[in-house]
């Protein structure tokens, strides 16, 4: 079996050269003192100039967190985390809040340019000929970007354009100042402070993230996107995102993330809350590309994230799509609580673990409303020494008559030292509900490889092609630009493991 031998050989020669986002930005930073205590929580709240209710809210979360135990049920292994040995606030030094991109530190702008993130509003909308915009950009729909650098949002583009439609798209710290009532009404209503260990931690120390509000009947004219960057050493990133889609509105939101290559592990514990009211649709796409650690398993991000949506309205719909290629450890279960009758939840996921990466990811679909339906499609790919677990829950309450779920979990193993695991929980208390689950595990078939090789494809291209085919059902759910990026990422993530 030459293909297998070749595959195995190259697994051994894996390097992390594929991670091209691993550079550091040298910029003057401001830190909170190391460690975590009530004073740090107060410090962050004061830095953000928060109202008293939010400080109280954070302190309550901190008190809850102190009483909680770190969860150990996931199929991931890592040395104990010292929560006192990290910075909980790190921000680039800014004299005053920049009013336009011109006032943003050029070093930061260069960082985002290097990452390929368009902070500059494209000329096509501004009506000006934009210098430096590549020709391919000009014909496309622009994307509004909120750029979060360590603990703060450094820039948000297209805010004015969106404001014309009544859409609010800004950093959550800004929303706390500008729209405190909206934030107060929804914050923590989907993921309460004491929901789980990491959510509690996030509630106490969250620093920034995006806030999106789509008014009644509005279809957001462009993709909204947040780009998260961890840069500073020994810091945790704790972002909080809140998206509210009012009756009949529609929004597509994208999220990307990268971090420098370091030998130490860094913690990223985000909370994302989505609220969809009657007939509203939220599409949430993630390409998670945190630094995964090197070939020996040194370094990388611990990505412990709580993401949950409530479909509160009738016929509301939330669709999660995630491509998880990065992070040393992923612990993430984007979920939908389907409260409104006829509401729809979707979860499409590709998770890749190579080298020593570990991923324990999946979803929860909680059916409460009548005729609610959910679809779960999960594709796990393990290579090297990677461990990949799908963990999901489908729960149908007695009230959810006529509810429907379909789940498909497929795992692909590349090499004989990796693992693929499937742990679905199905809890049905409603006679008229129909729940279906299927899962398969296999490896890349020799005949498929042979077919491609025979037609002149290199081993690497052949595997890339087959893996992309394996993930197709998920990738087609991504917005176009993201889908292209995700396909490239899949290839890079598997570099070295597939010859």
């Amino acid at each position, binding site marked *: 079996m030459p293909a297998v031998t070749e595959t195995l050989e190259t697994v051994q020669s894996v390097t992390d050269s594929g991670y091209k986002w691993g550079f550091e930005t040298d910029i003057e930073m401001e830190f909170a003192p190391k460690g975590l205590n009530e004073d740090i929580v107060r410090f962050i709240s004061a830095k953000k100039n928060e109202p008293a209710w939010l400080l109280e809210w954070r302190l309550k979360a901190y008190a809850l967190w102190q009483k909680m135990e770190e969860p150990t049920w996931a199929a991931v292994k890592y040395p104990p985390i010292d929560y006192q040995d990290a910075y909980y606030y790190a921000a680039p030094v800014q004299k005053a809040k920049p009013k336009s991109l011109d006032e943003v530190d050029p070093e930061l702008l260069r960082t985002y340019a290097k990452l390929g993130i368009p902070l500059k509003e494209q000329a096509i909308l501004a009506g000006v000929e934009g210098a430096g915009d590549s020709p391919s950009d000009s014909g496309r729909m622009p994307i509004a970007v909120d750029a979060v650098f360590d603990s703060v949002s450094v820039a948000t583009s297209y805010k004015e354009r969106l404001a014309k439609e009544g859409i609010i798209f800004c950093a959550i710290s800004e929303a706390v100042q500008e729209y405190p009532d909206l934030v107060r009404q929804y914050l923590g209503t989907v993921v309460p402070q004491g929901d789980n260990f990491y959510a509690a931690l996030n509630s106490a120390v969250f620093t920034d993230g995006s806030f999106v509000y789509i008014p009644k009947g509005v279809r957001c004219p462009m993709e909204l996107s947040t780009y998260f960057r961890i840069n500073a050493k020994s810091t945790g990133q704790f972002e909080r995102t809140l998206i509210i889609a009012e009756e009949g509105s529609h929004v597509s939101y994208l999220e990307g993330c990268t971090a420098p290559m370091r030998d130490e592990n860094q913690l990223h514990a985000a909370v994302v809350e989505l609220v969809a009211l009657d007939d509203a649709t939220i599409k949430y796409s993630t390409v998670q590309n945190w630094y995964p650690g090197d070939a020996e398993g040194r370094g990388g991000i611990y990505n412990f994230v709580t993401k949950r949506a409530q479909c509160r309205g009738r016929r509301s719909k939330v669709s999660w799509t995630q491509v998880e290629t990065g992070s040393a450890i992923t612990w993430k279960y984007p979920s939908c609580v389907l409260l409104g009758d006829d509401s729809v939840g979707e979860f499409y996921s590709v998770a890749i673990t190579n080298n020593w990466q570990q991923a324990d990811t999946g979803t929860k679909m909680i059916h409460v409303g009548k005729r609610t339906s959910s679809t779960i499609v999960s594709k796990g790919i393990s290579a090297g020494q990677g461990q990949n677990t799908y963990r999901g829950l489908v729960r149908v309450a007695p009230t959810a008559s006529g509810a429907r779920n379909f789940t498909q979990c497929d*795992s692909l193993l590349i090499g*004989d030292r990796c693992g693929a695991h499937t742990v679905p929980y*199905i809890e049905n208390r409603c*006679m008229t509900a129909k729940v*279906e*689950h*299927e899962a*398969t595990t296999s490896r890349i078939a020799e005949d498929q490889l042979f077919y491609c090789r025979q037609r002149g494809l290199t081993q690497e291209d052949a595997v890339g092609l087959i893996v992309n085919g394996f993930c197709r059902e998920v990738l087609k759910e991504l917005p176009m630009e993201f889908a292209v990026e995700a396909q490239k990422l899949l290839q890079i993530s598997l570099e070295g493991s597939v010859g």
Partner: protein
Amino acid sequence: MTAVRHTGAEGFLQRFEGLRARLPGRRLPWLEALREDAARAFRAQGLPTRRVEAWKYTDLRPLGEAGFEEALSSIDGGQALPAAHGGGARAVLVDGRFRADLSALDGLPYAAGSVAAALPGLEGRIGAVAPAAALPMVALNAMLFEDGLLLTVPAGVPGGVLDLLSLASGGARPEAFHPRHLIRLEAGASLTLIETAMGPEHDGTTLHNPIYEIEVAEGATLVHARLQQEGRQGFHLSAVHARVAAGGTYDNFTLVAGARLTRNEIHIALTGPGASAHMNGAQLLAGGQHADTTTYLDHAAPGCASRQTYKTVLAGRSRGVFQGKILVRQAAQKTDGYQMNQALLLSPDAEMNSKPQLEIYADDVKCSHGATVGEIDHGQLFYLRSRGVPEAQARSLLIQAFLQEAVEGVTDETARAALGAAVSGWWEREALA
């Protein structure tokens, strides 16, 4: 790990302290030590609560509260026993004790008899396949077992069909019995074991806690069908531990129709190349019954195959649980594993929880599982009704067809027929009730 909370373990431990001087084999130091270790393990684990992941869906609290006592056998030789499925060879246990007077084991080409009578020669065999510390119900059994079926089929011998009848006599007070069955098939041997667990006839509360230690040697085949039709006040807590060597086959079918609360665990290790396991089962539940089938299949050698089909039909306020894990170790290349579990909800008050699980460390494998939960298909019902089949009959037909798939997986004809009859008998009774 989540801390294990103790519930009701104290009653069993006290019973052990009170009984230990009278338990069989009390003069055997190795057995004394084994029981002592089991008591230690049981004291440490207690009866698991729902906070323990493996017991998430099954609550043993009612068991802890029942306050069981030693069973006093009250069935005498004069009683009519149900007809045997096989050729007449039959082993009978009453309240977990082997009854030579009721059994018919003469002239068999293999040895079958009482565990209690053979205890001095069983050192190293008891606990070899089912270690006491592994599961709480195994520890409970190791502490308190009195007897069981001891069966060894010599190499190359076709053993035919053996009936195993397990009766509970039941008394005024809750009674518990903990048989330990030791079954060994030597290389190339074969046997079909059809077990029926029944009783008590009145509403007595019983706990039947059987543990099976099964060894299937190279090229041997054991078909093991279990029909659990115990009284509706009963508790049934069992574990089958089987080890299958190269080229061997273990075929297990478990039918659960009786008892108020049932937990069956089936742990099979495929230890030699080319070994195979068939695991099928049906849970037929009504009223307030709770039944939990938990399987654990360990693919430890290359080129092994496993097939699992489990069906649950739930009426009334019943609750069904299926948990099934397939582990494929790194050495187990070329594994072919398949598992399907399906449930049919017949009542708006029924509940089904299922948790199939794959844990795979080898890459050249083909493993899949599927799970469905739903009600009777309206399209199929309409098809039958439109052809003049009355609704009740149409439903009955569809339910039987649903269950048939699991029964068909049984490789032995006699066992298959016995299971088929038990399945249709259940639905006829339930439909009338």
